[in-house]
């Protein structure tokens, strides 16, 4: 009995106790090293946790370079977007025009001309007065809706209307519009006669 008591008191004396001692230096060094390596890895691969960036892309700049921006399909899609926000309100998203608002573009002689010089003057200057489009008389006014559009956007719109709804004419580039814009003789709306004096 007394022996047991003795051993009990011995074991309680040997219990480990919590002390406050500094962590070994090597643990601190290794931890900092791991944090540094992980930070470097994230810097290289995570795109800074941007929710738009998935592997294999590792940064916003890299993702930006891989956006397919060129090509005829891209220009046509851009033209459709601009047409539907700027032109489609009056000319209709189907290009058939709206009574009392704007004549159709589908099957229009000006749109379907071989060249696009005369056509480009319409959005750049505007058009006013009587005109016959697709066999019907129209007497309305159009403001210079395209004067404020960037060259590339206006070119995309013209490309779109020249190749949609049964129209089948060549594409227009931003450089073409730049030249036409530079050569504008007036910024006032044209009449039909004035328009017909402009070469195709």
């Amino acid at each position, binding site marked *: 009995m007394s022996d047991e008591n003795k051993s009990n008191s011995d074991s309680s004396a040997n219990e480990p106790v919590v002390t406050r001692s500094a962590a070994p230096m090597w643990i601190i060094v290794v931890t900092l090293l791991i944090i540094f390596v992980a930070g470097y890895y994230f810097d290289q691969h995570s795109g800074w946790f941007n929710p738009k960036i998935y592997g294999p*892309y590792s940064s916003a700049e890299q*993702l930006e370079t*891989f956006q*397919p921006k*060129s*090509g005829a*399909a891209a220009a046509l899609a*851009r033209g459709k977007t601009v047409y*539907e926000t700027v032109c489609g309100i009056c000319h209709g998203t189907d290009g058939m025009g709206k009574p009392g608002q704007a004549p159709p573009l589908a099957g229009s002689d000006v749109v379907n001309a071989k060249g696009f010089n005369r056509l480009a003057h319409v959005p750049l200057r505007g058009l006013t007065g009587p005109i016959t489009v697709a066999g019907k008389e129209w007497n309305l006014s159009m403001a210079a809706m395209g004067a404020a559009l960037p060259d590339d956007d206006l070119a995309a719109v013209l490309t779109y209307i020249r190749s949609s709804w049964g129209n089948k004419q060549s594409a227009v580039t931003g450089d073409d519009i730049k030249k036409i814009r530079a050569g504008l003789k007036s910024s006032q709306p044209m009449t039909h006669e004035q328009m017909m004096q402009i070469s195709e």
Partner: protein
Amino acid sequence: MKTGFGIFLAAFFTIGLSWCGLVLTPQLQLGGAKLEPVLNSADTYPLQPTGAATLGLQVYRANGCAACHTEQVRQGGVACEISLTGLGIYKPADFTAYVKSLFALNELADLTNSITASLKGWNGDLPKTLLTCTNKALADDMASRLKAVGVKSETHIVATGLDVARGWGERQSVAADYLYDQPVQLGSLRAGPDLANIGVRMPDANWQMLHLYAPKSVAPNSTMPSFKFLFEVRRIKAGDAPSPDALKLPAAFAPAAGYEVVPKPEAKEMVAYLLGLKANAPLYEAPFTPATAAKK
């Protein structure tokens, strides 16, 4: 417990930090996800699923499809393909000679093998894929050199990787693909093929019906169990024509004469859901040039 408060603090910060990383951050990143514009188009993505497809997701879920099928396409990498669309003043042979003269330039040395391989045995047909490379800057350099001599080319962005090679998708799955899924059926095991694009790959509703009723009737090596309980085998009433919905099964799988197999609403909803799985729109975060546009 002299250090009780210290242990509490340590546990609180450990759990709090993982909560921030696993719950809070994703919520901040994607909690406000909205429809996204499709690249080079006026459309938005994804499309609102039809009512039947919305119900079909619950049928898909109830039948444990996600146990064997995933809905996530993985992408290994991305590559640029330069496709020739017009040779200008060149004849094919002259053009080949011109391109080979470019190999002397150090900065284009990496492209030598790719271009040499693609020009081998070329008879001058257009459009022609000239090279495939993973370095966008290099591809742009090559494209500008071609443009400078009046040769027309288009640069296509294509996703690469095993899943893409299997034809399971044209790009990897991204968060926007699951915008309308509640709950999301990602899946983690591929006993069957990936279904992220099944509506594009197998757009035939009749095929889907047959495949659900008797998988081996359309895919002889399929290990998929039959989902016969989504269908009803019923007697054709004397004098009545068979139901227009009745499955046209091959003889080995057809029911007895005078009976027909018609899909229950669950089967129709499931097929509507499967046909609506079309993760094929090019998005900002997963850009690629669609095959249809590439063909133009």
